[in-house]
């Protein structure tokens, strides 16, 4: 046989073997992926495929550590799920919300705005594509987003199941077996507190540059919620790291178009604040309980607050401003 045809024949055999292995192994890993018990991907899977709750929380790691669905449910009688995911930004929240709205309409949405949510980041699109890739064939919104971000990635993800699950096998097995990270309806508690010497960190981020993509995503997020008559709350949860330039002004400007306000809890500190924080950016479980309790009491419509199901922090209603 001529060497060229030999190469062609053997190349074809290898391609077939690769394709079959990709499908078989890929489907198996995919099965474990969509049935993870916990972990970041389990939260995203819940948002994209299984959401049925009345109250949904969107945001990044600060959302996932700051809002306790159990507290909200017990206070209001509404079911709740925390869809916060570490390292995400507006474009992710928008895609996730649109995915949810394609099959379910919640009553209330809380968006935890991070002070750097609009900041331009070099690899923001790449990171988002990697996170959403496994859902490319599960949801139209995700499909469109990946196609618009990177057509090459889109094609590769369509060809190979394993490519969609790149770098994920280990976390998949870990979260399928329920090892490590523990979440409660998406909420991930943090134990431990900052040392007494901990001080608020002021960041002089003079290079702050807003990303047009993230701004558009924010407006789309608000618009999507409003168009379905969903009660939307935008909060900036507490943190011990304050950026000089941040998303607040721009967010307020956009929200005012929809008669909404951004409630800023980011600078409520006193000498005891360190007890409520796990690190400069995240509340610990005590802080999260106090904060969740506060935002419900301060903002949720009275009709949802029943005296019968009040659970109070340390026996008292304890708004964060008093801590």
């Amino acid at each position, binding site marked *: 046989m001529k060497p060229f045809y*030999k190469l062609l024949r053997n190349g074809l055999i290898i391609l077939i073997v690769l394709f079959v292995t990709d499908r078989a192994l890929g489907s198996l890993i995919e099965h474990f992926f969509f049935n993870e018990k916990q972990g970041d991907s389990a939260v995203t899977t819940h948002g994209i495929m299984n959401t049925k709750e009345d109250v949904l929380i969107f945001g990044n790691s600060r959302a996932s550590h700051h809002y306790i669905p159990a507290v909200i449910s017990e206070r209001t009688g509404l079911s709740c799920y925390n869809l916060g995911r570490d390292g995400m930004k507006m474009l992710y929240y928008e895609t996730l919300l649109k995915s949810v709205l394609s099959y379910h309409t919640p009553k209330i949405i809380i968006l935890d705005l991070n002070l750097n949510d609009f900041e331009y980041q070099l690899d923001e699109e790449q990171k988002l594509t990697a996170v959403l890739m496994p859902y490319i064939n599960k949801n139209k919104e995700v499909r469109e987003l990946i196609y618009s971000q990177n057509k090459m990635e889109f094609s590769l993800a369509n060809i190979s199941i394993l490519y969609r699950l*790149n770098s994920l096998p280990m976390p998949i097995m870990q979260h399928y077996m329920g090892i490590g990270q523990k979440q409660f309806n998406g909420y991930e508690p943090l134990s431990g507190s900052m040392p007494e010497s901990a001080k608020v960190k002021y960041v002089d981020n003079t290079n702050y540059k807003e990303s047009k993509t993230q701004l558009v995503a924010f407006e789309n997020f608000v618009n999507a919620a409003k168009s379905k008559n969903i009660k939307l709350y935008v909060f900036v949860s507490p943190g011990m790291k304050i950026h000089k330039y941040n998303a607040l002004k721009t967010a307020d400007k956009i929200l005012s178009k929809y008669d909404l306000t951004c409630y800023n809890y980011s600078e409520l500190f006193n000498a005891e604040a360190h007890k409520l924080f796990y690190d400069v950016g995240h509340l610990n479980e005590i802080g999260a309980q106090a904060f969740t309790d506060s935002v419900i009491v301060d903002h949720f419509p009275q009709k949802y607050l029943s005296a019968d199901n009040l659970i109070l922090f340390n026996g008292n209603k304890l708004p964060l401003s008093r801590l």
Partner: protein
Amino acid sequence: MLFNSLHFFFFFLVVTPAFFLLPHKHRWKLLLAASCYFYMTFVPVYILILGFTIIIDYFAGILIERSKGKSRKHFLILSLVANIGVLAVFKYYNFLNDNLSFLLGNFGYQNHVPYLNILLPIGLSFHTFQAMSYTIEVYRGHQKAEKHFGIYSLYVMFYPQLVAGPIERPQNILHQFHTKQYFNYTNVTEGLKLIAWGLFKKVVIADRLSIYVDAVYNNADQHSGITLIVATVFFAFQIYCDFSGYSDIAIGCARVMGYNLMINFRRPYLAGSIKEFWSRWHISLSTWFRDYLYFPLGGSKVPIPRWYLNLFIVFMVSGLWHGANWTFIIWGALHGVYQIFSVSFKKLNEKNILGYRPLTNAFHVLVTFTLVSFAWIFFRANNVHEAFAICKSIFTLKPGGLFIGTPEGFVYAIIWILFLLVVEYITEYYSDVVKVFSSPNRVVRYAGYTVIVLFIILFGVFNGGQFIYFQF
């Protein structure tokens, strides 16, 4: 265009079949055009610099061959000055100016020499050294001057090794461009296997390790001694897989078309001494310095103090070759000192100090790896001040826990390092693991191909990670 990009994948898919479809007399045109395109995907205008040195060296080669007496030397000097001049302007000018400012500042003067706002042309040190080896070899009479301008240009610009080597010698590669290359099944498959293995080392190992290394080294002051040790060891493997992965892909791409490039790495971390390490690491550069700097300085055939000085000079220059930064110079100087100690205590090194030869050998490998890794701190650190701070944190075992980053990323990193070590060990002492892919049993062979490709797809880091050596 990076070897680990889809852009390159399609480029390769177009260029390689076209190469075999064209008659031999036109192939150089295709390869030259492809190489120009390859280079111009980085910063197009810098091809003019390449063109400048190519023209100078092409004519210098011919004139050296035709001339007699002193004028031969003059033409060689002209060629060297042109090449080193380009390097000096683009790579070292601002560095020298910086140091001049510092020096003058110490005496209360101000430096008014302006800085150049230029980007370093990619792979400049590589193709400049390859070009210089040509005129030197013509001068020495080891190589006939190339009369075909296109072929000479291809010698400097051959895309597989244009931006990060191996730094070829004219005797090895030039005649290959004149020889008709036939489609050879073995060459093609061996080349493809090397490409796959190189890609595996780059995207699965090097780029995975780089996530941890970057996270630690970019905030070195915030990490504990143990974290910095782990990051340094990770960097040792990262740079090896990054650079040797590139070399494997380069050699593989050339091999597919029938061209043989020189081997650049031979399992360097299994070296039992620093001397041996340098005979296994970046071989094309270390032999370049040996042939064109160390031997002309007198090599080892001089009084011992002068010999040591020669060794030190060669490694200092090697450090400077890597980058216009004191970190690289210190890295080179450290290796120079290592070499001097290595040759001074050669007899001690040969003794079976642990009483059991395999154990002694393992001990030597470990000591060599530790010394090499220590030097990598200076290579990787962002500046000298930071490098010394890292050394201090390591030697004082600065307290704090071990930074993990993402747990899966950390576990993957360790798994792939162990995997690499096993492969290297088997290759060193038993047989070439890449030959597993040449097993007579078709099932074993195809399973090998499938596993490596699936590993790349499933565990590769596809963030468009640059090759570290591109910056040189």
